[in-house]
């Protein structure tokens, strides 16, 4: 944590530092907030809902959320639908291949807590494998709920601790 003390020392005594820091922090939060690129991975039975949300009526791209094909350019995994044991390993591989500011959104009751298949032998909740940022309830969740979940993620990104920020 010496990075923290170093940052706080600079912020106090260097005259314009805190103002510059606030500006950079604002721009960083604003740009990540409005350009979340989820990955093209539908793991379960909510996939038609994911298509309707990126479709015409409930347009996810209004918030800047554009599904991308390759894992390197994405910074958000939307775990859409149930996650079986075999699929959970794949989600873990993808999580490790992604660039650093990465987020996970669990869409639906199944990745959150196994949903209607609570007693099945091959189903896991996703937070045993990857840290999850936003949980969206519903089976399948309504498109408005998915968009509300993405907005929750946007608020979380803005309030995130970055660059050793001191409260």
């Amino acid at each position, binding site marked *: 944590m010496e990075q923290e003390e170093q940052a706080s020392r600079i912020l106090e005594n260097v005259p314009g530092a805190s103002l510059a820091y606030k500006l950079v922090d604002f721009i960083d939060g*604003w*740009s990540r907030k*409005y*350009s979340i690129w989820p990955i093209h991975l539908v793991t379960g039975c909510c996939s038609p809902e994911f298509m309707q949300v990126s479709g015409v009526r409930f*347009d996810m791209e*209004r918030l*800047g959320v554009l599904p991308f094909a390759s894992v*390197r*350019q994405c910074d958000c995994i939307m775990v859409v639908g149930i996650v079986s044991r075999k699929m959970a390993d794949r989600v873990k591989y993808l999580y490790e291949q992604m*660039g650093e500011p990465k987020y996970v959104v669990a869409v639906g009751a199944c990745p959150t807590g196994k949903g209607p298949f609570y007693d099945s032998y091959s189903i896991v909740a996703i937070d045993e494998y990857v840290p999850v940022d936003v949980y969206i309830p519903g089976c399948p969740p309504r498109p408005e709920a998915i968009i509300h979940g993405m907005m929750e993620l946007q608020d979380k990104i803005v309030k995130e601790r970055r660059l050793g920020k001191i409260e």
Partner: protein
Amino acid sequence: MIYTNIALGTASRTGQTLAGIMAWMIEFLTVNSKPILQVLVLPGLAFTLVFALVAVWFERKFLARAMLRVGPYYCGGRAGVLQVFADFIKLFLKEMIIPDSVNWLFFALMPIMVSFVPGLALILIPFDANWVLWDIGSLGLPMFLAIMGIAPLMPIFAGWVSNNKYSFIGAWRVAYMYISGEIPIVICAAAVAIMAGSFNLVKIVEAQSNMIFAIPQFIGFIVFFIGVLIESERTPFDLPVAETELVFGWRTEFSGILFGFTMMAEYVMLQAWSLLFITLYLGGYSGPIIMGNVIGSHIFWLLAKFCAVVVFVILLRCVFPRPRMDQMLKIGWSYLTPLALLNLFIVLGLKMWGVF
């Protein structure tokens, strides 16, 4: 002067030629250095960057309209104007992953070269009689085609260096497509040069003053436009970056700002090719003079035609599905090349009987 001493020091026959090149480079930098405005703003850096940003925003909004939906909306004002800045800043701040099984220097260099080399060809486009950044007179057209001949090598190396099966197939497709797209373009450009009587782009534009070349060489006009689509990887010919088959083609492995460069490269290539297309067929910068200011109206007309061509190219993305690789090559070889030759013979015929 240091360089010339080293060159003279070798004093072998290659030393003379080396000295010759050095002398020529120094002479080039000092004698015809253009005013800063031309270098930085118009055919230079600012034009490419602004066009890349505006084109990315316009394409996303235009495609959204074609899909009957709204497109980026909340970011910046009510039309998602700042959406592209948000994307590029985020890409800038993102972690740049370089896989360990990859030659990291070559891997980091390639996306920059992919967007830089087509940008080189922009400096040959005439915005006005003497508003040409690299004024090499009658070498204009062949130099443009030479630079644009090198440009496709960069995606091939980028796909090859990222050591990923999908990008390997993407790079391999880039090679096939460019060969089948390059030859019709060069033949049609030759036909235009024959009709204009010179390779100098400014003379070509002046030769079109009474009638733009699109009318007498209509076949060449169509073939060149399809060639532009093939060269700049625009749908319906975006096979190297076929999103649904090869994840992202040769751009799969790049992350962070490297991917930002490859996004920009797509638009720089489109910019260079459509500007040449306008200069050769749509009469370049010539157009009715507005309010007496000659240079201003020339620039205005060139940019207006440029916007029209780019909008039409983006419109095609909503209308056409993508052909398969072998069908794409069949189009290139068995339709475009014979048509280009036919156009060449028609132009020779017109030239022989003195119609033009």
